[in-house]
């Protein structure tokens, strides 16, 4: 496997010419030129995400992204000099509130009435501090103009302004007319170093709304349950925030995250479109050079141990099912097995492939799909799963049909026709995706965060060269029972 992969590195037939540069402070720049349209897809990605959260603070990384839309010390305020002491006081007050809560709880615990504290979560001092905090927040509102920061992008023709936080990255996106590119560097350098937390509590309401939106999808809880059973220590299997986490989100904690991780030596700027590396370097230096390199950030310390057990998750709910979600742990991006694993995933989800024939073809499944889309860096040992999801009313017949076919893939070669079709689907997927510069810029940045941008293209090339023998070896290695998590959802009320 590794020979094939390494050999293909040299071919790299789809490898584009990408300009690369790095500032003295460690900020990296990737530029893929395309002058067919006078626009540039702009991304700034930071190697930071939910994997740095602690239990009880899930959702903080995502929330930080929301807070970074609330303006800076230079934008989003009517009078920074007047507002600054108020924002400082708000942080101090929150610290005092937390101290008072901890003090009260410690007192209660010493008296052995901890549970009483849970029923009366306040003290006179706490109420006093909370009322001052409330006053300060209202006072700050006089200076707030959070819409201002976005308006610079709007007025210059910026579209697709958005941001996203996943487990390993946070990114901010804008698509600008190329002559307005400088605005991206001005806004994003400021955002990286000068963001301030405004309208914090109302933004918690939005996090809540987004979580409720997730929960309104019938399969969310099932997917999360299967994911959380798929690993032991790796945070990639943790959910990104529960409603129980949101009331205790803190300004001080999120600021620590911000100031630790949002540093130039942990950040990549990716541009695709009507610009050049020289132009990008000039603008990057103009705005980011003033931000000093900071202490190097660290990876998560959790490394998933090699799996040696079979896991089964059964969910009974009136809202979802019957369905199966069968997962196998797989290596991350950059691992030499990854191209074959991707191709194997494509084949497992093919409604006309071996599993499709045994399930959809036999009338046992109404739908079949697979994905390995959530990709993670390989440095966490087993950081991802290959998922096969099937729906059908008779799970007792459907599950053995899938498992038996998976087992057969460990001993029998997949036909050339099935492999050819799977390779074509992956090729078509990429050809469609690369029509959109924003998608290409994201993919390059995402891979650069996880491994290297070149890996994106190398893996695509390598996937096209995977042989039937390599697939067989890959199935034999990964589709084992001790590497398997089976999720079963049945639709029935819980008595």
């Amino acid at each position, binding site marked *: 496997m590794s020979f094939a992969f390494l050999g293909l590195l040299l071919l790299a037939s789809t490898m584009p010419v990408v300009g690369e540069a790095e500032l003295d402070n460690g900020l990296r720049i990737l530029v893929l030129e395309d002058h067919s349209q006078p626009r540039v897809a702009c991304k700034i990605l930071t190697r930071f995400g939910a994997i740095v959260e602690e239990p009880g603070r899930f959702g903080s990384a995502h929330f930080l992204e929301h807070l970074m839309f609330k303006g800076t010390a230079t934008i989003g305020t009517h009078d920074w000099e007047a507002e600054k002491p108020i924002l400082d006081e708000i942080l101090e007050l929150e610290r005092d509130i937390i101290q008072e809560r901890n003090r009260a709880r410690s007192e209660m615990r010493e008296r052995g009435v901890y549970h009483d504290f849970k029923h009366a979560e306040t003290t006179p001092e706490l109420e006093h501090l909370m009322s001052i905090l409330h006053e300060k927040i209202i006072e700050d509102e006089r200076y707030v103009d959070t819409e201002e920061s976005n308006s610079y992008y709007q007025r210059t023709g910026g579209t697709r302004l958005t941001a996203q936080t996943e487990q390993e990255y946070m990114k901010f996106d804008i698509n600008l007319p190329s002559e307005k590119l400088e605005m991206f560097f001005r*806004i994003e350098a400021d955002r990286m170093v000068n963001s301030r937390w405004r309208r914090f509590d109302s933004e918690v309401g939005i996090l809540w709304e987004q979580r409720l939106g997730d929960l309104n999808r019938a399969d969310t809880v099932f997917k999360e349950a299967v994911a959380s059973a798929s690993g032991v220590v790796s945070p990639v299997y943790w959910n990104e925030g529960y409603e129980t986490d949101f009331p205790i989100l803190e300004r001080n904690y999120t600021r620590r995250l911000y100031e630790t991780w949002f540093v130039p030596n942990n950040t990549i700027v990716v541009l695709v479109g009507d610009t050049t590396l020289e132009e990008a370097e000039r603008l990057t230096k103009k705005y980011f050079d003033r931000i000093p390199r900071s202490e190097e950030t660290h990876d998560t310390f959790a490394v998933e141990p090699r799996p040696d057990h079979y896991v089964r998750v059964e969910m009974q709910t009136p809202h979802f099912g019957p369905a199966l979600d069968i997962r196998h742990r797989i290596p991350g991006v950059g691992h030499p097995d990854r191209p074959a694993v991707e191709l194997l995933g494509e084949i497992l989800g093919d409604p006309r492939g071996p599993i499709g024939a045994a399930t959809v073809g036999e009338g046992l499944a109404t739908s079949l799909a697979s994905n390995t889309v959530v990709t993670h860096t390989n440095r966490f040992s087993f950081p991802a799963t290959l998922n096969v999801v099937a729906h059908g009313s008779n799970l007792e017949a459907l599950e053995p049909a899938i498992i038996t076919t998976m087992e057969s893939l460990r001993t029998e070669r997949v036909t050339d026709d099935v492999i050819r*079709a799977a390779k074509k689907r992956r090729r078509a997927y990429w050809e469609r995706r690369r029509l959109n510069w924003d998608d290409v810029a994201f993919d390059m940045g995402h891979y650069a965060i996880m491994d290297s941008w070149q890996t994106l293209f190398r893996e695509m090339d390598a996937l096209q060269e995977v042989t039937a023998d390599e697939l067989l070896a890959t199935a034999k290695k990964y589709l084992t029972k001790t590497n398997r998590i089976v999720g079963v959802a049945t639709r029935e009320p819980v008595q």
Partner: protein
Amino acid sequence: MSGGILLLAVGVSLAVGSAHAQRDPIPFDPPEAIELDDSRFVLPAPDDYRVELDEGLVAFIALDPNTATVELTALIGASRLDDPEGKAGLVAAVAYGMCQVEGLGDHLYAMDARLSVTTDNEQTRLHLSLLTEDLDEGIALFAEMLKRPKLDEATLDDYRRAAVRPLWNPDDPRKRPEYELPKLLYGNHPAGRVPKEASVAAITVSNLQSFHTQYYVPNNVVLAVSGGIEREPATAALRDALFPWKRGRVRHADVPEIPKATPRKIHVWKVERLQGWMLVGHLGRQGREDEHAALEVANYILGGNGAIWKRVHPEIAPARAQGHFDARFFVESRGKRGLSNDISSYVPVGFRAPALTYAVTLGRPESIAFLLKIIDDEWRKIGEDVEGGDIEIAKGALTQGYFQMRYAGAHATALSFAEELFFEGGHDWSEGYIERIRAVTKVEVLAAARKYYRPEDLVAVLVGPLDQIQSSEHPLYKAKLEDFGEIIVHGWNE
């Protein structure tokens, strides 16, 4: 806004709670100080892409030498408005027949092609996306679907079963408002009719065939072709695949006046979920008038959506097209109050019948009544005052943002030109768009807003947990659904 801020209790954190001194800011010049060049955007010329095929068929062909895909789109002048009285669903049945051509599934699988077929009040749309290496097979399939859909008894039986299948499962009720609001606002007008058991039972194979004969003719179709294919070979391939194909005499059904819906009602479909989904609107616009540019500016300020340019479903534009975070709806509901993750407004244009002007939002039960109040209030206020700065932001966003994106790439360009010809008969609006938007004045924005946002005509559709919505109250933002109007509860299976 003072006092109007949501303050949540800081919870029982186990944190040590050390305050974090904020870094001192690093100075930057104001963004206004940046000297930015004028726009480099040049509107492509439609004639550079236009190809006159035979028998009145026009195609817009755009080459993208860097792609290995081809996108084929046919805009067909056959809409729900052409369904005969008592036979609602006929246009959809013919479109369904396109998806039943012999071996379609095998072809799509072999090519890994993407197919979509839709019908609405303005059009039937066929779109096929494929790899360039499959162009011959793809164009042949495309032509077969257009010219020889499977219109027989078996197709009709299948369609009848599919058409009357219950659309709404409580597992996924989110899209139901988009289905119900048009029905309420168009009433029994052809624009609002949906297929029923009796109407699809009344359709015959002969109806299918004669409908196809009348409407699926080259002079009633506009094509958009883009991707990895040069203009000359694309033209030749289209000619080979599509012709002979005889032009026909197309007579569209007369469209009657739309009776006015009873306004200020909240139509509710109860479902036990964690949020409610809401669509609020009234009848909108048909054709473009002089005020259209001013209305686009007004809508950008109000609800912030660029979907004014998207006409895939003219009466209900895609709800999550490109919005922005600074529209009045967004600021009032999300930025200041944290009530909703998404709220936008749309002013699409209908050409054969009025489209709908509407707002869309969602939120947790205690937020819903206040969200409705925000929509109602802002629908009125936008006609009372707008700031000059907001108008300038809107102009920049519309002319340098959304409008440019209509021509960003080969497919967008070919499709935009095809739509302009198909819906509007030409490219005048687009060619003068930038100048029109730039010339809009504050007086015009206010006049257009007062004319086209009519709070007194609003109708609301709410899908959600009504009992919770009525019994819960937001601690700060208090409102009642009844403040808007009478609540009418519908059965889920209605």
